[in-house]
């Protein structure tokens, strides 16, 4: 499998860029919740060991934060094309076949899933709102429908991202857009991006010591 790197459309298909832009902006905002989560954990640790006091609210808040971050992140991974794939066969077929696979996959596998979850989740949140569900712990957080509301919100975002991909793949299949430049097999590209690795540059001068190599990577 691979974590394919982003095949950016680079301003080629405006509606796709617009949808992806929305998804990415929201998800990147949500990503910061992980930093907030670190803060909340630190505070609850200090609270617990420093003041011998537990706050059920803080403990519940931890999973609220983590949940929102990863749920929006799933949409981000669709836009960024970083979901894990088994690329054994995939990377050896033609571009055209890849587009067809992608289109069929989105229409037959992804969209039915997203739509049925989105559909069911709306009444699920509505019911939670109707009874004003609160935590089953007496001092837990109230208004549980708020966090539950993030589920359909995230699925809506996934739907947008999926539609953007569908449009892009259809247009590319019909040769109505520019193909992204040829990429390495997905996971290698992802790693290179993730760690700013440029093996070619690394080995251009065989005498590069590790320390300075590192600086090159940092400067990327």
């Amino acid at each position, binding site marked *: 499998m691979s974590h394919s790197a982003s095949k950016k459309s680079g301003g080629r298909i405006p509606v796709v860029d617009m949808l992806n832009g929305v998804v990415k902006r929201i*998800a*990147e905002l*949500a*990503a910061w919740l*992980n*930093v907030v*989560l*670190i803060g909340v*954990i*630190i505070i609850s*640790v200090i609270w617990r*060991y420093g003041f011998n006091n537990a706050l059920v609210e803080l403990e519940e808040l*931890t*999973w609220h934060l*983590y*949940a929102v*971050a*990863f*749920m*929006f*992140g*799933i949409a981000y991974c669709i836009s960024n094309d970083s*979901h*894990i*794939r*088994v690329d*054994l*066969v*995939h*990377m050896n077929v033609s571009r055209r076949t890849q587009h067809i696979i992608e289109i069929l*996959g989105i229409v*037959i*596998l992804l969209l*039915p*899933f997203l739509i*049925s*979850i989105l559909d*069911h989740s709306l*009444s*699920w949140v509505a019911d939670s709102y109707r009874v004003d569900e609160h935590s089953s712990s007496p001092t837990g957080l109230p208004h549980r429908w708020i*966090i539950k509301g993030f*589920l359909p919100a995230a699925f809506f975002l996934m739907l947008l991202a999926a539609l953007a991909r569908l449009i892009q793949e259809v247009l590319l299949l019909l040769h109505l857009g520019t193909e992204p430049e040829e990429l*390495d097999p997905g*996971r*290698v590209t992802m*790693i*290179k991006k*993730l*760690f700013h*690795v440029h093996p070619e540059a*690394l*080995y251009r001068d*065989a*005498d590069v*010591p*590790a*320390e300075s*190599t*590192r600086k090159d*990577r940092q400067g990327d």
Partner: protein
Amino acid sequence: MMGLEPESWLVIGMFSTFILLLFTGFPVAWVLAGTGILFAGVAYLTDNYWETATGIDYNSLGLLVGRIYDIMNNWVLVALPMFIFMGLMLDKSGVAERMMHSMQKLFGNVKGGLAITVTLIGIILAASTGIIGASVVLLGVMSLPVMMKQRYNKSLALGTVAASGCLGILIPPSIMLVIMGDQLGVSVGDLFMGAVFPGLILGVLYMAYILIYGLLRPEDAPLANDHRGVTWADIGRVFLDIIPPAILIFAVLGSIFMGIATVTEASGVGAFGAAVLAAAYKRFDFAVLKEVTINTMNTSAYIFAIFVGATVFALVLRECGGDELIESVLTGMGLGPYGLIIFVLSVVFLLGFFLDWIEISLIILPLLGPVIKGLGLDIDGYGVVDNPELVWFALLVAVTLQTSFLTPPVGFALFYLKGVCPPEVKLVDIYKGVVPFILLQLVGLALVFIFPALVTWLPAVAYGN
């Protein structure tokens, strides 16, 4: 196959469809979810027009919402993005280069010393990150150019990097063990503790192999041209470079093991500590934080997407009677408990050729947990470890999966490594290099299999009174 209940055909159909669709290269998470939804539709039709009785209809798919929400409010898994953040941040902190630099001096006089340094750093990195990609890439970037320059045997160099980089998934803290604990319903602390000896044994096996290799074929593991004696300053430097990450590791693992902190708390503190370390090494600024934050989201999201897909797949499979079918197939083979475990590990090993540990843990473990529990294995938990047979089994699976990262043709680590190699290194060179290490892995696996105490003893001592 005549004796099968009609529902069994749905189960078989589901699995075959899943495997087939996997190879189209469509994202695994969506293949899982999509196959689930697709077969919910099929089951609805066969309920009405054939003789199955699954009771699945569109309305019952609403159960999936609650199941996905259950992943959202899982307090064990909160540790996962935290450990990922910690690993990525440590990568940015430059800790590994510092250690590499100073330890290289220390081991400069030993044939194969450089390779041993790589393995040692692999172990230390393992204990701090646990993200395979990160360790392999980091080790590769740091050590391959130097090893090439020193004219190491290409295969030895590549094998060392790939194998050492994979230790991270086994040596705690490990996101794989967090997920396994959650799936099997065993204590993550027990798994962390249980993984210490198997992880160290593998590390020691690697080092022993390299040492012997260096003695037998010194020309393949040469010393650096400019090597000199070890000075006290070198030793001091090593300690200075090792102490900060060591403190972080002990703070994280120690607080879990001593029962001071929950896994979540330790993971949060570890993430914070990694950022502090990066700041101490002047590698921390807003750009770094932003990058690590977004990559944390990205990495944890593609893992959780598989959680979501797997919960869809598992529900429909279960409603079609998949659990019962698998249980009856496995127990009906007449293999006996240990034969069954060997069979299961072989299947896991084979699946590891093309599936990621995430999918294997999420799809296979929940199905196997009850079967293994029902075997009535007599594994000693010393009255302390709960479900010692499951803890032992989880570690067997973990070592097996770790081996499969190294296994050609498509082991995870091999591709990561290829990504950072000079262009003249071919995939075949990497394949050749990992073969001895795969054999060592199998030796390690056999040891854990024959001596379950390697797994269960430490948690028992740690948590006993």
